[in-house]
């Protein structure tokens, strides 16, 4: 029917009017279009689906937060004299530079898991970052910049030491700088975000305590609030996951002023222990403030550029400390007399006062804590994305599909004319009418199409080969009466006790048939008369679909986790596979634990760059509807089955089961054939695999090959009480079996 978007169909009875009348059913759906600023709003309307318990807890958190906020604002409003005093202090401090962040020049930087940290103090460093969407490249002194490079472990802790000299400090600042070289949203070394799970600091061995964390807020999803960096929970953290081309800044207020004498060394540890792999910061500076209190630096380089234009400063000098510890809009409000401030400015000043003033700190901290726990809890509740209904747009026939041409005839929702008419007297047809018509007894098309698709699952080819088109451009079914009978049985089962549209009944009918239970081996006559097996004198042999290949390997090796439902999972994926994508720049971050071993059905679908294990076996990219899949047979498939870490891990796990289940190699071979291929090996097969086993066992024993390395494939645990060389050699046998054509073939 797609052809009719531009013109009446040449071979099928679809007209352009039919196309646009069908489209009109969907004219009442609110379309949000592309949202530039990704993240929370990008997916349109969302509906939380809390359990009763979750609802109550959320309500409780809401109430507590409101109460805490009310208490804070009440106290802030109650004493204007105190606020005026704070305003004067703040303005004076700002003008004297007392709120400015003091960037520190580290003396040492080290990592726990191998990342290389390079300090650029007075040394020049290349930076490539964005200003107003254009790349700016510069080379200038680092001023305390720390750059991570080299090994890129999943989790990492950076330890930085610096000597601030004599002072009393109120806050620590972590300034995170974007750079074009960083694959994770240009901020982190991997994943699509950085997550700073915990920050701690100590002065010459004496630990300091943080009380409040405030961030620039930009690009920060609700599950990664600033306070999570100081909540003592090693898994939660502050992170930036969307938005681009901006730096990020975290201001951490000390519980008590931190005194340093001239020789004191401050050690700051930045922990990255989240479940996002390689969500580690790429470039950062550390700063201290002695102000009361310094606002996080703005991460918005675009805004910095505007300020640069206004002040004629160069962008280079603006890279640090543009706002000198106070947001420009707050500064503007403070500089006005109170009576001249707009309502918005009054509110801004009051909010800033509530955040900064020492007399309000306990209440402000309480609000921040409750905000954090409420938002993180809400983020953990499942939600659905839904489309909203609105007043239908006018739908016209677009001549030759030209959407700029609004001269076409206006159409109402209706089904293609040659298929009949919906009976909706006196009102326009709706999507519900369409849905009812699709499955009505008077419309056998839906059932025929569905039956044909299910048939393909069990015979490799539909009764009509062209699954997506049962019209004149499709193929006349090989067994039209059978197709009709199955469709009728699907819609109105004759078997007692079955209900209509029951797919399980349909499948049972098919798999208990004589046709299904036939052998797949053709006789010479069958081969000559019906090479494609359209007449069904035998069963078909066909390679199973991508997802099944993955699931079979996991199932026989015992790795498969067959939970039902839940969010998508991310199995291992080669590094750099997403490098051709952009906006935002991202790196893949594989899941952990059970999520690595779910059925491939649950693998996250990345449109345009489908998971390569599935793509190799002809899974469609889902850029457009693909009803049928054409099986290919390529060397890339061999490379996946041989070398893809999930299949290597599966061979190792299958070998483990072989070793655990039987004592000697011959019995193990029998067991693995029976488990994987549902038959026993022949003498020749035994000979081939025994030879492989013996040869490889000798290689592992002699040290020519590294058993421990092979066995380290994947995340699943390895039992400690195994003979590693024996297990590794067995794994090479298991690997051969998982690679067999027979293993990936339904026969």
């Amino acid at each position, binding site marked *: 029917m797609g052809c009719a978007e531009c013109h009446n169909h*040449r071979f099928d009875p679809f007209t352009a009017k039919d196309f646009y009348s069908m489209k009109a059913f969907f004219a009442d759906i609110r379309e949000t279009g592309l949202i530039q600023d990704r993240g929370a709003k990008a997916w349109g309307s969302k509906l939380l689906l809390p359990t009763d318990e979750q609802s109550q807890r959320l309500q409780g958190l809401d109430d507590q937060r409101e109460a805490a906020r009310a208490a804070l604002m009440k106290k802030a409003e109650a004493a204007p004299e105190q606020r005026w005093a704070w305003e004067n202090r703040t303005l004076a401090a700002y003008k004297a530079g007392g709120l400015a962040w003091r960037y520190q020049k580290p003396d040492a930087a080290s990592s726990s898991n191998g990342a290389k940290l390079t300090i650029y103090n007075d040394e020049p460093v290349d930076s490539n970052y*964005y200003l107003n*969407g*254009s*790349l700016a490249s510069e080379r200038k002194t680092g001023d305390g910049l720390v750059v991570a490079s080299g090994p890129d472990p999943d989790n990492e802790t950076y330890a930085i030491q610096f000597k601030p000299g004599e002072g009393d400090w109120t806050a620590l600042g972590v300034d995170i700088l974007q750079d074009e070289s960083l694959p994770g949203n240009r901020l982190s070394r991997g994943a699509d975000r950085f997550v700073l799970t915990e920050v701690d600091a100590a002065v010459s061995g004496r630990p300091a305590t943080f009380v409040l964390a405030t961030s620039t807020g930009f690009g920060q999803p609700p599950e990664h609030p600033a306070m999570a960096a100081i909540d003592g929970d090693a898994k939660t953290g502050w992170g930036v996951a969307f938005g681009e081309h901006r730096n990020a800044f975290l201001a951490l207020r000390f519980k008590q002023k931190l005194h340093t004498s001239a020789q004191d060394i401050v050690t700051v540890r930045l922990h990255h222990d989240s479940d996002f792999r390689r969500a580690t910061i790429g470039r950062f500076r550390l700063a201290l403030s002695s102000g009361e209190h310094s606002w996080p630096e703005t991460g918005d380089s675009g805004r910095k550029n505007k300020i640069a234009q206004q002040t004629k400063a160069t962008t280079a000098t603006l890279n640090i400390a543009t706002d000198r510890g106070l947001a420009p809009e707050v500064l503007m409000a403070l500089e006005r007399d109170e009576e001249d401030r707009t309502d918005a400015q009054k509110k801004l000043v009051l909010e800033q006062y509530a955040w900064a003033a020492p007399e309000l700190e306990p209440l402000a901290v309480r609000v921040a804590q409750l905000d954090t726990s409420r938002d993180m809890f809400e983020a953990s509740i499942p939600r659905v994305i839904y489309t909203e209904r609105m007043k239908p747009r006018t739908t016209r026939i677009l001549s030759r599909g030209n959407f700029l041409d609004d001269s076409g005839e206006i159409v109402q929702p209706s089904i293609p004319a040659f298929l009949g008419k919906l009976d909706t007297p006196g009102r326009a047809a709706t999507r519900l009418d369409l849905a009812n018509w699709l499955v009505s007894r008077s419309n056998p098309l839906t059932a025929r199409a569905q039956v044909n698709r299910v048939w393909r699952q069990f015979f490799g080819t539909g009764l009509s080969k062209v699954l997506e088109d049962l019209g004149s451009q499709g193929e006349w079914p090989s067994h039209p009466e059978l197709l009709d009978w199955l469709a009728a049985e699907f819609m109105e089962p004759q078997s007692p006790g079955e209900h209509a549209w029951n797919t399980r009944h349909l499948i049972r009918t098919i798999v208990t048939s004589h046709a299904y239970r036939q052998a*797949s*081996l053709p006789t*010479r006559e069958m*081969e000559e008369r019906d090479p494609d097996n359209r007449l069904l004198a035998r069963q078909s*042999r066909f*390679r199973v679909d991508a997802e099944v290949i993955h699931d079979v390997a996991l199932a026989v090796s015992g790795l498969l986790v067959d939970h039902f439902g839940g969010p998508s999972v991310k199995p291992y994926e080669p*590094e*750099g*596979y997403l*490098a051709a*994508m*952009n906006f935002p720049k991202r790196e893949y971050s594989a899941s952990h634990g059970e999520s690595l071993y779910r059925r491939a059905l649950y693998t996250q679908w990345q449109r*345009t*760059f*489908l998971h390569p294990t599935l*793509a*190799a076996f002809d899974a469609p990219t889902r*850029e*457009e509807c693909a009803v049928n899949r*054409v099986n*290919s*047979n*390529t*060397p*890339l*498939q*061999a*490379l996946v089955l*041989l*070398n*893809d870490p999930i299949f290597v891990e599966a061979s190792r796990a299958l070998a483990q089961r072989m070793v655990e289940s039987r004592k000697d190699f011959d019995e193990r071979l*029998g067991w693995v054939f*029976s*488990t994987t*291929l*549902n038959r*026993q090996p022949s003498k020749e097969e035994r000979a*081939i*695999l025994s030879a*492989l086993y013996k*040869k*490889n066992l000798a*290689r592992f024993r002699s040290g*020519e*090959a*590294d058993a*421990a390395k*092979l066995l*380290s494939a994947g995340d699943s645990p390895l039992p400690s009480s195994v003979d590693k060389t024996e297990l590794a050699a067995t794994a*090479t046998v298991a690997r051969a079996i998982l690679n*067999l*054509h*027979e293993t990936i*073939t339904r*026969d």
Partner: protein
Amino acid sequence: MHSSDEKNLLCRRAFLRYGTSALGMLGLNSLLAQTRGVVSPLHHPAKAKRVIFLYQAGGPSHIETFDHKPKLAEMHGKPMPESFTKGQQIAQLQNSQLLCFGPQYDFQKFGKSGQEMCNLFPHIGSVADDICIVRSMWTEQINHDPAHTLMNTGSIITGRPSMGSWILYGLGAETENLPGFVVLMSAGKGGQMQPIAARQWSAGLLPSRFQGVKFNSIGDPVLHIKTPPGLTPAMQKDEIAAINALNRLEDRAVHDPEIQTRIAQYEMAFRMQSSVPDLVDVSKEPQSVLEMYGAKPGDGSFASNCLLARKLAERGVRFIQLYHRDWDHHSGVKANIAIKACETDQATAALIRDLKQRGMLDDTLVVWGGEFGRTPMSQGGDGRDHHIKGFSFLLAGGGIKGGLSYGSTDELGYAAEENPVAVPDFHATMLHLLGIDHERLTVKFSGMDARLTGVGGHVVKGIIA
């Protein structure tokens, strides 16, 4: 599951395997189809055997590359005459005042042919006499992805085969160790790296063995090309030998031609494992060659990929497509195009020179170009918007007339005026050079004979030597 299942010898599979009589060998058609093309013999004698397409993604400004527009310089800052733009499709400049934006760099004449090129491209200028500049390209699509889709598949509707797939389908491969259609993507500096979808090198409605295989510049060059840690190459060889021996036994029992193909593909996979890492390692090239291209081994740059493209061409790869991104200069065209010129100029020239030295330029068609051009009007005072009515392509080798400037845009560089070349015309010409009549390379699809050139395409005879 234990002892009982082993005794279950008469399960269905075992019965199938041993219970029926053997059959004769089936044909190896599916296997041979992989190397032999459907255009056999060729429709006419070929001038080119292979194509290297240096795809400059994002839409290079023709006005700062190969289309000299002095009149536009004179008009700089003045309103664009309405006669040019009225009723025309524009992208982000809708509803804004259209001002002329003069070329940001000077042009000069290069070579004996005196072809005019922007002086940002002195290296390409140095091979000007081998190059044909087509200044009258035009396209239909004003956004990146559909424009890429049109350039690659001849259609704006996704799902059609890419040109590399068509050519591989038509001509087959000349190598059994490498895929016949290889895609490379280079790293570079850039602010607007528009994403490129894997569908751009898809086989569409052709069998998927004709799809492009992307070699990566990060990690393994081909996914999973490395033998798993802990195993030696000899063990991998034995493993594949065992798998193939078992598959042969299976084939003896069930006579499935897919098994023969599977065995051949495992052999090819092993050959790729041996050849690809060596192939992509350009560090063994002589220093003089590295310097000529400006390539540093392992940097994943356009220069390294040009050198790799030459190596792939030497080994018989039919279609090599090298994407270089970030020509999308909506802003800061002056600074940004200088970066891109710096990244591509020397290596492009080096590739042409290198092929020529090796006697391969005669039968290798080299193409340099993107999905569209950029407006002669300014965007935001220092950039240029997407533009479909006129842009430039460079062609060299493979039967192309060198030292020729073909076609032109109007005096302001807005629309192709003399000898306009549509995307299907380019496709038809490329196929013609390869010995294929574009109207006769077709597959049945939806009741039509689908072809790369759709319902259009005229061979541009004027650029053929």
